[in-house]
C-alpha cells in the first residue's frame, strides 16, 4: 500500500518506510474510494447473468474491493446498468439513480444499455441509458464477457484516480440537481421536453422537412 500511495517528491525517512506514507489528499481520497466501490445489486437482463458470473468465484470481483453488492441504492456508489433499458423501467432507473448518494458512477454494460443493442428498434426500448442518466464507462458486447466487465471496472477506477477534491461537483456549495423522472403517457415523456412541447415538435418537424428537400 505505501508504495502505491507514496509521493516521490516527499521521500519518507529511512526507518519509517513501510510504516508511513506521505501523499496528497487527492491520492489517498481517490485510492480509498476506488478500492471500495460498492455496486448496486440491480440486474436488468441477460447482461446481469454475466455480472453475477463476474462476482462469482472464477472471476472474483472481490479482488477489486467491489464484491459488496448493495440492494439499496442509498448504500451504493456504482450503478451497473446490465441490460436492456425499457420505457417501462426507465422511470425506476432514474429514481434509483437519484436515490444514490454522491459520488456516484454509472457503467453501461453491454450493447443494450449503451445504445439499445439488438432490440433498439423495439417500441418499448430506450436507445441507451445515457438518454437519461450520465454514463461514465461504456462496455461493448452482447453480453460483455466477465473479462470485459472487469476491464470496464478498471477503467472506472482509472477515471476515479483522475478526479480532484477541489473540482468534483459534490463538494461545491450549490446543490446537484436531480434528474427529472420520465413519465409514462401515450409514449415515454421526458419532462425536459415538456415546456413548449408543441413548439418543439413543430420546430423538429420543420427542420426534418427542410432536410428532406
Amino acid at each position, binding site marked *: 500500500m505505501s508504495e502505491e500511495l507514496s509521493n516521490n517528491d516527499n521521500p519518507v525517512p529511512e526507518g519509517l518506510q513501510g510504516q508511513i506514507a506521505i501523499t496528497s489528499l487527492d491520492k489517498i481520497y481517490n485510492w480509498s474510494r476506488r478500492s471500495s466501490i460498492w455496486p448496486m445489486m440491480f440486474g436488468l437482463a441477460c447482461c446481469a447473468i454475466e455480472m453475477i458470473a463476474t462476482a462469482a468465484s472464477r472471476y472474483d470481483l472481490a479482488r477489486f474491493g467491489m464484491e459488496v453488492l448493495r440492494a439499496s441504492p442509498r448504500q451504493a456508489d456504482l450503478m451497473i446498468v446490465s441490460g436492456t433499458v425499457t420505457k417501462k423501467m426507465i422511470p425506476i432507473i432514474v429514481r434509483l439513480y437519484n436515490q444514490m448518494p454522491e459520488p456516484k458512477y454509472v457503467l453501461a454494460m453491454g450493447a443494450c444499455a449503451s445504445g439499445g443493442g439488438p432490440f433498439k428498434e423495439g417500441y418499448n426500448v430506450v436507445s441507451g441509458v445515457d438518454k437519461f442518466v450520465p454514463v461514465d464507462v461504456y462496455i461493448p458486447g452482447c453480453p460483455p464477457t466477465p473479462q470485459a466487465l472487469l476491464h470496464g471496472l478498471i477503467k472506472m477506477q482509472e477515471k476515479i484516480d483522475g478526479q480532484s477534491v477541489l473540482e468534483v461537483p459534490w463538494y461545491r456549495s450549490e446543490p446537484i440537481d436531480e434528474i427529472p423522472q420520465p413519465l409514462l403517457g401515450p*409514449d415515454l415523456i421526458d419532462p425536459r421536453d415538456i415546456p413548449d412541447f408543441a413548439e418543439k415538435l413543430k420546430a423538429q418537424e420543420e427542420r426534418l422537412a427542410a432536410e428532406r428537400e
Partner: protein
Amino acid sequence: MTDKESPQVEGTTREPDSLEQHFPGILTPDEREGFDGYLVAPDKLTEFATRLRDEFGYDYLSSVTGVDYLPDEVMEVVYHAYRIEGGPALVFKTQVPRADPVVPSLVGVWPGADFQEREAWDLLGIRFTGHPNLRRILMWEGFEGHPLRKDWHEAYFEEDAKPFANRWPEGDVYRIEDKIPFGKNVQYPSEFTPEGWIPEGDEGLYAGLGQISNDGDGSSLKTDQLVVNLGPQHPSTHGVFRMVVTLDGETVTDLKPVMGYLHRNHEKIGERNTYIMNMPYTDRLDYLSSMSNNFGYALAVEKLMDIQPPERAEYIRVIMAELTRIVSHLWAIGFLLNDLGAFFTPALYAINERELILDVFEAVSGSRMMCNYFRFGGLARDLPPGTLQTIRELIFERLPRRVDELDIYLTENEIVRSRCIGVGVLSPEKAVAFSAAGPVLRASGIPYDVRRAEPYGIYDRFDFEVAVRYGGDVYDRYLVRLQEIRESIRIVQQAVDDIPEGEIQTGKPIFQVRVPAGEAYGRVENPKGELGFYVVSNGKPNPWRYHIRAPSFINLTALAEMCKGHKVADVVAILGSIDIILGEVDR
C-alpha cells in the same frame, strides 16, 4: 410426501378424427394451405372448449395467441390444447373481424388462459369478454395503440421487412434518429399535449386489493390490510419483476404480479426479421438456456420447411440441450438457496460447475451465453476437436460427483427442509388448470414432459426417467430439478457414446431459407417448461406471425395461488422455486 396418483381424466377414448361429428355446425376444418386444426365460431367457443375439456380430455391449454391477418381484415385467435397424458396438440382457432375483435374469454374453462389473453389484448387489441381482469400486461395502462397489429408502427419504423434497403451496399445509409421528431424512440398522438396530462398511475392495479380491515372478534387481533410492492428493483425478484402483495400482518392475502419491465418487443422485431435472423434473438429469451431455445425455434421452422437434420447434428443438439438443462437447474438451485437466505455461498458452488459447461458452449459456438448455434436442418458448425473428450470428463467424472455433493449438503439440510416443505403447494388439478409446465408441473405429481409426451429430435432413443414428485411444494420442485440434472447427465452419457461421425447440416447452409406458406408449432421441454414457437409463414422471407409460448410467463399465472396464506419471506422462496427468467416472461 403424499403418494397421490395423477388425476384420471374420463372419456379420453374418442379420437379427434370424429370431432367434427360431435360438433356439427360448430366446427369446420381449417382448409388453408399448410394449416391445421379447426375453426370454431366465436359464439360457440365457450361451449366447444368446455366440452373439449370435459368429454375429450383436453385438459391442458398450452398456448393462446392472436394473429393479425391484415389483408383479410381478420383477427384470429389460435389455441393449442393437449391431453395431459400425452399426444399431439389439438389446434383450434376462432376468427373475428379485425375492426372490432371480440372473443369470449376461456379463463373460466382453462384458468391458464388468463395472462395469455391479457397479452393478446395488450399487443393485438383483441377483447376477451368475461375476462376477470382484462388490463394491459406487458405495456403500461395508457399506452397508445396495440403494437403487434400489422398496421401499427413504432417511432423507429423503417420498413416492413428486413434487410432494409438502406443497408444494401448501394443504399443511402442514414440513422433513423435523424428522421423522426425528437430524435428519440417516441411518438405521440397528434393532438397530445403533456401539459395538464395526468398519468394513469397504479390506481387500476391497486383496485381490488382494497385495504379491508379485520375488526377482530375479541379472540383475534384487530388488523389492517396493507399493500406492499416488491420490486421491480428487489434482490429476490430475479430481475425486473414486481409483485404487489396485500398483507394481513405478515400473511399474504392476495398477490398480483406486474411484468413488462423487460418487454423488448421480441415478437414485433421477429416478424420483421428474416427467419435466420431470429435465431440469435431466441438466445435472449431465456438467457440461461440459449441452446434449447434455439432448438425450439429450429424445430418449428423445420416443420414448416419439412426437413430433418442429419444424425450427427441430432446427437449434438441433444447433448447441447441437456447440458443447458444442467446449467439452468444448477443456477435455479443455487439461487433458490439465495432466496432462502443462504446468501451467495451455495450459488457459488452452482456457478462454478456452470462455468465449466459454458466453456464447452464457448468452444462449440464462440459465445458463453448467446450461442446462436442451431440452424434450420443442422448446426452452425461441428464440434471442435477435443470437445467430446471435455464433455466426457465432465459428464462421467465431475458432474455426477458435484450433484451428489449438492444433494448431501442441501436435501437433508434442516433449514432447507423447514423453509421448503409444505410451502407454496400447488395441487395437481390446479397445476394442470393453470397451464403450469416443467418442474412446476412435475413437482405437482403430473409426469408430463414433452420429451416423453411428444418426443422431438431423437429423444425417443434415450433411456431416461421423467422426474416427478407429488407434494407440489418448493421442496419438491427443488428435488425434481436435482433429479432432472441426473437424468440429463444420463442422456448426455448415452449420446456421447452413440454419436456418429458425419454431416452436421442437411444441404448447403443458406441464409435466406425458403419457407412454404403455412403454420407450425414447435415445442421443446426447456429447463423452465414447455417452450413453444408458433410460426405462420406466408411464403415471404420473414414470418407473418412469430409467437413464443414462454414457460416462465405462463407459470406465473399460478403464483398468486401458491402464495396466498404464506408469509412474505415464503413468497420469495416460492418465486425462486418457479424459476423465472425475465427475458422470457416479458420477451
